[in-house]
């Protein structure tokens, strides 16, 4: 099974243990696989280890005084375990971080240019044009300072900046945080358009399980640093555990 999966997997996390200096193990034997073009949800409550897993994949754990103790992370077959975060981005990992983290003092256009700086100029130009097609709002504001835009627009920009680097896979961390539901829906709808246009795979980390399960093909559930469930989005949504813990009573409406 693993041989076939490796050949096709765009992201493969295998047996990852991670820890922070002061605390006990934050991730324990976590494995997950994202096939080319796949959209995978990572669910879990606050403190379950979702953000730690994201940082373990993106190479940012050391910056937050954490360590990847053992296990491996591969992008399209290339072992990226222990590489510097900026090198991992160059290998095809696009990041839409929690809290958006746009460059506040740069214009929309400049933010996208920074994203496109890791790919050849022609590819970057094409990508930026495609981002403007997906998010006409950004095209309207291309000369505006990013810090002066609304939260929803900044989230579009963070997504656009990651797309401008022509990634094989996007890590999307808590996109809905602090945004109005209607805006979140609109941005999520664009994620599907992104996949259709570029075939980009995505790992979607969400506290709002209902939303994530609606748009993703498969889902993993993380609790206290351990993957406790995985399967197709429909299976996960139908399980009692998920309905009770994450979807609330309205979960039945899925």
């Amino acid at each position, binding site marked *: 099974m693993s041989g076939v999966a490796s050949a096709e997997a765009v992201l493969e996390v295998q047996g990852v243990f991670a820890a922070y200096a002061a605390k006990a193990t934050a991730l324990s034997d976590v494995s997950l696989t994202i096939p080319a073009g796949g959209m995978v949800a990572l669910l879990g409550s606050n403190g379950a280890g979702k953000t730690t897993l994201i940082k373990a994949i993106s190479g940012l754990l050391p910056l937050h005084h954490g360590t990847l103790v053992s296990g491996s992370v591969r992008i399209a077959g290339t072992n990226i375990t222990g590489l510097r975060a900026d090198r991992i981005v160059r290998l095809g990992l696009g*990041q839409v971080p929690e809290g958006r983290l746009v460059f*506040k003092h740069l214009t929309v256009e*400049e933010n996208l*240019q*920074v994203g496109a*700086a890791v790919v050849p100029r022609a590819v970057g130009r094409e990508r930026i044009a495609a981002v403007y097609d997906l998010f006409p709002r950004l095209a309207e504001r291309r000369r505006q300072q990013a810090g002066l835009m609304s939260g929803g627009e900044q989230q579009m920009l963070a997504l656009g900046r990651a797309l401008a680097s022509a990634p094989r896979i996007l890590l999307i961390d808590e996109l809905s945080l602090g945004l109005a539901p209607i805006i979140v829906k609109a941005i999520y709808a664009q994620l599907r358009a992104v996949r259709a246009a570029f075939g980009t795979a995505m790992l979607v980390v969400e506290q709002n399980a209902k939303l994530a399960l609606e748009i993703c093909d498969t889902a993993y559930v993380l609790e206290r640093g351990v993957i406790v469930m995985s399967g197709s989005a429909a299976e996960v949504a139908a399980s009692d555990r998920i309905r009770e813990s994450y979807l609330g009573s309205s979960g039945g409406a899925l």
Partner: protein
Amino acid sequence: MLMQFLASGFMLGSVYGLVALGFAAIYKATRVFNFAQGMLMATGAYLAVTGSVVLGLPLVGTIAFVVVAAGTLGVVIQWLLIRPLAGRPLLAMVMITIALSIILRALIVIIFGGGAQTLRLGLPEGSFVLGSVRISAIHATAAGVSWLCMALFMVFFRFSKAGLLMRATADSHEAAVLSGVNVNRINATAWALGTILAAIGGVFLGQLQVASVELENIGLLALPAVVIGGLQSIPGAIIGGLLVGLIEQLSSGYISPKARDIFVYVPLLIILLVRPWGLFGERELGRV
């Protein structure tokens, strides 16, 4: 007299602006408050002595030597001292730059001796009269070259890809890393540029006075210049440098040369008390 003081203040202030710009470039990209900037400036003067006197290079060769050597020094400083301490508290960084400044001073004294060295680069000498003001050719050249370097830096910072990545890193270190920016390389570039700008300022001040480790005190005027202009503002650093030059000439002209420091550092204190982000800086939008 007033016009004379204003003119010489403007010309000296242009050189201060250049050194302050170097300081601001380093601070903006790497958040290191570089107390060694004054000594880096003095080092520039001694690099010019090395190029012209020791190596016997012509003017153009000496300038090229200063630029390459200063740029290399900046990269080495970033690589050996600043990079390993990334993420440490501000105090550690400040202590590093103070130690660096003391070490550079000691090295210069060991190599060149404690006395001052005359620096003659063959720049145009003499003076000319413009209206009611007498202007020395060396001062005019210093101001002209300073403005040229500042303009080149602004073009680089605004319009080049490396300049864009430098502004992005200054804006958010983490977002830059997440966008694939090699932050170490950007920081090294900032240190190289900051050191080159300081060194060019040192070449001119060494020429206007003498090459001596005491030039450090003049170079350190870059600190009030950037604090007055606004630590986060590149144009603010240049304007701060000009203001310091004008204040210096006016206070030494009308009161006493000793009065300079009071009139430069009192505004620094006032700015820190009432407008800590400087005349042209922006109030922080939030914690970085």
